């Protein structure tokens, strides 16, 4: 008797698992299709988001702080003038400890005038007192568990199947909750559209086979961009993962950023 029941249970479980396996891709495709019809993303016609997995990585060792990326982003995406940035470059200066202080390091000074678009002023401390100095480009961290998507009351911001976190400007009510929820300060409320805005990985470009504007202009390849589902031979993003030990920003928050950094310091957050 008990055997019969367990067999029936087993069959039911196998059935459920099979159904799950069969339904999951259908559901994913259906979701993508629905998003395609109802959501304004600026993607190219005929672009299939389920066939890609976009990601960016940052090699901070290579960044020279020229700020071209921040400037290109502003121009490409018509980002409003003023304190509104989809990407920016921070400068970190860690000073040497005061002699006899017994400390390993001195102060950490961070600045980012105009998002780094026009370079940086002379450091506030003399060169001899600097222990480390480096630049960190910042952008949407493409979180696996994005708090911004979680809190949007109408679902105007969403995870696209291809890995981009997007906002539908025709749907956003401008409540600002996502801006509060983003731990990385990557979002802003546009004074022009009165909706939330953020890095889209230049969705209008990548869906047409181009690179994001910031990647395109970076003179040192500090920004690495790629499609994890369609790796090219000697793909730069694969090489980046193979050649570097990487870090993510604010890992303790459990957002699981997919933008990995190489060559940053513990002071970066």
């Amino acid at each position, binding site marked *: 008797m008990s055997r019969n029941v367990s067999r029936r249970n087993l069959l039911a479980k196998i059935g459920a698992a099979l159904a799950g396996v069969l339904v999951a891709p259908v559901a994913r495709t259906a979701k993508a299709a629905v998003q395609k019809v109802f959501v304004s993303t600026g993607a190219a016609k005929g672009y299939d988001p389920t066939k890609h997995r976009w990601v960016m990585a940052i090699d901070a060792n290579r960044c020279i702080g020229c700020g071209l990326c921040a400037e290109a982003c502003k121009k490409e995406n018509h980002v409003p003038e003023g*304190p*509104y*940035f989809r990407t*920016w470059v*921070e400068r970190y200066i860690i000073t040497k400890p005061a002699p006899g202080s017994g400390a390993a390091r001195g102060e*950490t*000074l*961070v*600045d*980012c*005038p*105009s*998002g780094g*678009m*026009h*370079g*940086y*002023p002379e450091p506030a401390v003399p060169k001899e007192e600097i222990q480390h100095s480096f630049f960190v480009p*910042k952008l949407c961290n493409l979180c696996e568990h994005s*708090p911004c998507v*979680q*809190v*949007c*009351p*109408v*679902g105007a911001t969403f995870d696209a199947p291809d890995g981009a976190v997007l906002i539908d400007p025709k*749907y*956003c*009510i*401008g*409540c*600002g*909750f996502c*801006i*509060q*929820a*983003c*731990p*990385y*300060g*990557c*979002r*802003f*409320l546009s004074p022009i*559209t*009165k*909706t939330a805005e953020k890095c889209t990985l230049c969705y209008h470009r990548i869906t047409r086979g181009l690179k994001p504007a910031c990647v395109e202009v970076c003179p040192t390849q500090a920004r690495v961009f790629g499609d994890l589902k369609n790796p090219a031979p000697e793909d730069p993003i694969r090489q980046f993962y193979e050649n570097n030990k990487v870090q993510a920003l604010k890992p*303790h*928050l*459990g957002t699981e950023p997919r933008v990995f950094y190489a060559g940053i310091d513990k002071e970066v*957050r």
Partner: protein
Amino acid sequence: MSGEITNYVFEAMPHFEGYVYPNEATPQPLWSILIVLYPYITGLVAGAFIMASLVRVFNVRALEPVYRLSMLTAFAFLLCAPLPLLFHLGHPERCLEVMMTPHLTSPMAIFGFVYAWYLMAVLLLELWFDYRRDFVEWSNRTSGLKTVLYRLFTVGVTDVSEPSVKLDHKLGHILSIVGIPSAFLLHGYVGFIFGSVKANPWWGNVLMPIIFIMSAMVSGIALCVFNYMVLNWVRRKTIDMKCLDVMCMFLFYALVMDAAIEGLDWIHRVYSAEEGFQVMQYMAREKLFYTLNVGQATLGTVVPLLLLGLLQLLRKRVPELARRRMYFSSAVLVICGVLAMRWNVVIGGQLFSKSLRGVMSYKMEFAGLEGWFMGAVLLALPFILLIVMIKLFLSEQLPTSASLEARDVAAK
């Protein structure tokens, strides 16, 4: 050259100290006075309703004189509660999307439903069951527009036979019972909007909903004390001291609980001293010194606690006039203290950078959507509504506990 100028402008801006993310460097915080008022008003609703429920559910007969006033207070404030939220939206015309296509993982998405439930299913219905017999009576007694109004309010149910009135009472009682968890849900959920933001160490806190519920109860009861005393003063009626004493006893106990939980929150923050503690310490010492230490903690909590606590011990020895004055000042202090608390939560949470390396300053402007004037208007609006409602629904002399006892005796 242009680079130098831009750098200069950014460095010269007086709003920031330390490093803030570029997107945080806006002249004023994203959520300002309107979002301060939203949880404040919602809290007053929840608190006033709990006050009314003390009569209905917990059968505290001494509070019967303020039952209707508390219900009307809750109603007037509830009608105004979503206004600040609505005005603050970038696209207010899309507000209904929150209810039409809610995103269920968002704490904000549920507000529409909780609000609608509370307004339609709890407050409106309970008020209607409570008032229906009076509406029928008043529609017969008055003339002109008032008759039409009262008749409209009966919604055609004019049966005032004893079983029908009894049914009203029964249903009203059930609604009160449902109303208590609903009031907790309404305001606990508002607390969760802030408590769920893990990106912000000032907000992301498991105690936040409970802190919000407790402070809501405190502010709501204090508002009822304030309204009751002012109404009696305007009408030149004597205050029912028994009722006032009991109200302020509940205010005292709620305040003790509120202070204990908020104290616990701070003890935990100080002891665990997690990431961001330094910036929070700086906020409490510098940026929020007056609103947090002076407004919320000292004037809004400690002083009323002492005043009310003293009166719990020495009630019989303090003459009535002095007692009334002490009650009134405690109520006013608590009402202002809770407003300061909302300010500290909402504005305080945005005065430091999420990089935890810098702080912002905020000076509220006078005009504009997020200015003093608008805030004052939005805060005055529920009081204006309440005055109209009192004119319509509370025109008769407020019952006193003596008169209610006489009625009970007569009924027996």
